[in-house]
């Protein structure tokens, strides 16, 4: 199969690039190792759209953060993904912290972040955030900071790419890349694909993908260093303790932990930073969790950890000895473009990765003709967020919207079926969770799990051992009863 551009990876970076490419008359494919989009770093992070005062002025990170955050503000209502501009505070109480906060403020001005200001007294801080610890008397307020569901945003971008003609190939891990006339041949999932341009958005494995293409010049590659971060996700009864994303003042020792409401009204606490060697290690450790819990006390003592519903960890991808994002054409391989070292504020940059890719491609002479009929995909609204009249209409149109499957999050059968028949279909229990929020609530899928298992089998005509929790092979059940021996 021959393509103009092949994107490797469908996290937030690949999804964004694919969406932007789908605006032009180009033949584009996305190759994804996993069975769904947003399966690695994109699905396990803080979900913050940073205002942009943090990255060093002049870096790609600074520019794309500010650009991306602006685009997210515009795209969220258009594509109907969840985004709440709740603002953020960087809090401090010591003279050193005051100084750092003042520096961040200056950086913010340099990075052209709008609306930031310093809150100079305890009163000012506690007026908008009464549950912060009493000793906090200084803060950088950034009103444009927001919270987002990172996987939902990636899904919205990928859906848009899909309905505008981009081909997605899942369970298609890239095993080889060979230079051929006018481009590259890529082996993935046992199939060969050819293309003129490769865009490497492989996240934690961007180094390995690049090395596949470099062959005997592997030394020219960069190295991705994984850095794990763990989290607490608490029940919605904790979600209203705070009104803003609360960051601690960064120190030489680290960025501190954030405590924030999530876009769905839960509370998130984390992450730590653990430079582990294993890129696929998404385990949680009790020492790390108790340190996070301890560290959060510096922000507020009001969090009731008894209401925790889930711990998780995600892995960031840093580039060894390189601070910024690495986004550029390979100096050795023409038309091979790396998007590497995409860590925080990667989610905030979201859509800007796509526009950046277009800029690079047009610089290389790729012919870019806009499609007149490009359309953004608009995600269906959650049933529970509909007005009474919309709910009545939904059930009248399709009875299955009257059947609640996930009782904690009030997710209906109609929404689950929509997810199974989405432009990129959900095929697993967690695929449905990412699209509908079913199983995200207090019982964590205890009640709805078996029901969704059944719906997946019936709707997709699957055998019981073909229904997975998440990754391919992660079976839910191992057999029928009376068959254990």
């Amino acid at each position, binding site marked *: 199969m021959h393509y103009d551009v092949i994107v490797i990876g469908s996290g937030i970076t690949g999804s964004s690039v694919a969406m932007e490419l789908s605006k032009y008359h180009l033949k584009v494919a996305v190759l994804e190792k996993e069975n769904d989009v947003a399966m690695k770093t994109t699905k396990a992070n803080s979900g913050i759209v940073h205002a942009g005062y943090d990255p060093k002025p002049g870096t790609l990170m600074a520019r794309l953060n500010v650009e991306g955050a602006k685009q997210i503000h515009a795209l969220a209502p258009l594509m109907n993904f969840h985004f709440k501009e709740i603002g953020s505070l960087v809090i401090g109480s010591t003279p050193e912290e005051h100084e750092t906060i003042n520096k961040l403020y200056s950086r913010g001005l340099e990075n052209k972040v709008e609306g930031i200001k310093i809150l100079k007294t305890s009163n000012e801080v506690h007026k908008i955030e009464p549950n912060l610890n009493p000793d906090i008397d200084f803060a950088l307020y950034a009103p444009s900071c927001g919270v987002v569901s990172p996987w939902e945003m990636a899904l919205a971008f990928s859906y848009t790419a899909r309905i505008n003609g981009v081909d997605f190939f899942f369970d298609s891990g890239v095993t080889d890349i060979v230079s051929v006339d006018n481009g590259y041949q890529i082996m993935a999932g046992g199939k060969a694909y050819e293309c003129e341009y490769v865009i490497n958005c492989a996240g934690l494995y961007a180094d390995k993908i690049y090395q596949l293409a470099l062959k005997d010049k592997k030394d020219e590659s960069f190295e991705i260093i994984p850095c794990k971060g763990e989290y607490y*996700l608490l029940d919605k*009864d904790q979600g209203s303790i705070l009104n803003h994303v609360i960051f601690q003042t960064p120190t030489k020792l680290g960025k501190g932990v954030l405590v924030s409401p999530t876009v769905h009204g839960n509370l998130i606490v984390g992450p730590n930073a653990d430079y582990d060697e294993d890129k696929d290690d*998404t*385990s*949680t*450790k*009790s020492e790390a*969790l108790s340190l996070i819990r301890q560290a959060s006390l510096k922000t507020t003592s009001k969090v009731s*950890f*008894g209401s*925790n*519903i*889930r*711990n*998780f*960890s995600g892995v960031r991808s840093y580039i060894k000895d390189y601070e910024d994002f690495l986004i550029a054409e390979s100096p050795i391989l023409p038309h091979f473009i790396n998007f590497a070292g995409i860590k925080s504020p990667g989610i905030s940059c979201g859509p800007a990765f796509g526009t950046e890719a277009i800029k690079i491609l047009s610089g290389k002479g790729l012919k870019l003709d806009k499609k007149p009929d490009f359309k953004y995909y608009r995600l269906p609204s959650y049933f*529970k967020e509909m007005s*009474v009249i919309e*709910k*009545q209409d939904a*059930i*009248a149109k399709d*009875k299955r*919207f*009257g*059947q*609640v499957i996930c*009782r*904690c999050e*009030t997710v*209906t059968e109609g929404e689950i079926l929509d997810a199974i028949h989405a432009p990129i279909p959900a095929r697993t229990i967690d695929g449905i969770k990412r699209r509908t929020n079913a199983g995200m609530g*207090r*019982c*964590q*899928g*205890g*009640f709805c*799990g*078996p029901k969704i*298992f*059944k719906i997946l089998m019936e709707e997709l005509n699957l055998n*019981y051992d073909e229904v*997975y*929790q*998440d*990754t*391919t*092979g*992660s*079976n*839910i*059940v*191992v*057999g*029928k*009863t*009376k*068959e*254990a*021996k």
Partner: protein
Amino acid sequence: MNTNRDLIIIGGGPAGLAAAYGAFQEGLRDILIIERDDTLGGILNQCIHNGFGLHRFNEELTGPEYANRYEEMVKSTSVEIMSNTMAINLTDDKEVTVISSEGGLQVLKAKAIILAMGCRERPRGAISTPGDRCAGIFTAGAAQKYCNIDGYLVGKRIVILGSGDIGLIMARRMTLEGAKVLADVELCPYSNGLARNIAQCLDDYDIPLYPSYTVTDIVSDKDHQRIQKVVISKVDEHKKPIPGTEISFDCDTLLLSVGLIPENELSGKAGIELDCRTRGPIVFDNLETDKEGVFACGNVLQVHDLVDNVSAEGERAGHNAAKYIQNGEPISKIVKVCPGPGIGYVCPQFIRVDTMEDSVNVFFRVNLPENNVTLVLSGNDGKLASVKKIRVAPSEMESLKIKKEYLNNCSEITVSLEENHND
């Protein structure tokens, strides 16, 4: 359909069914049960083991049989049932928003409401069990549903964390299905299930109980991301794992039986005050919450050990809701019931002295298992009544009778536990 009802009961499990029956017995005729499932009986339907009904029916029934008894009793009355219907909102003026495929979205109004939504299991996150993110970890109840209702086996080599009753029942159930239950791991130095379940579900099948142990790591198969190993460690008196005490089990499944939480989302929407100890509504002796005409019973109020007690509480809620509709809100002096030393919670939390029955049972749980103790009721001026017990445990709900006469000169009554000094 008539949207103005006398009594609406939210939930058609054992509590809701008994409440409907109780209200009918008291003379009420316009009673509606809202049930989210397609069948009545709630969680009893998947509890296919026996041991239900010894108190209520003087015989041992299975869960479905017990549910069926009540279903028949209710079906012989004028009680109406809306099944496959989910209550998605409740207001303090007793408006219930329900949705269903057949009826769409409807707003119903009632003179009285009984909350009977039951409880749910605590998930892995509630206890922050560390380890890999992987498939093969289930709450015991979810595994029971897969097994008993849907006919699927969740695993063949099983470790169970927690020794609550559902965990114990599932240890036996999985064994009978041919699976190997390698261990039941319990954080406390004692089991949290009923003594009879320890004997009948673990001991009879040689399933080892590991008291004072917890799961300290979960390891998954990297290719398939399904659990393949569980590491447990002994814990010290502060429940902290002791390094060097690790035991590994190669397994394909971890079942969690780590507690139940009353399901009070709707109560929250109506602004009903909850007790942080029971995590259910705070109620008066007639099981009425702080919102007039809204009652609560069964596991949404306090997690019970025995369905027989759920039914008894449900019937009382039904009686009292009917009386409320007939006579209006009771007006009375109020006495507070408090948990004293050694006691985890009490229910009810308040008694209306002037309108109470001749006596009221206060239900409670002790904090720790103990032998040779006295359960004591005290008022403002000292001891009112006491009962000696050979053994008490948090897993067994206790009760004491509060007589009306105790409360004449009381503003507060306390339940406490005292050690017996052997002479």
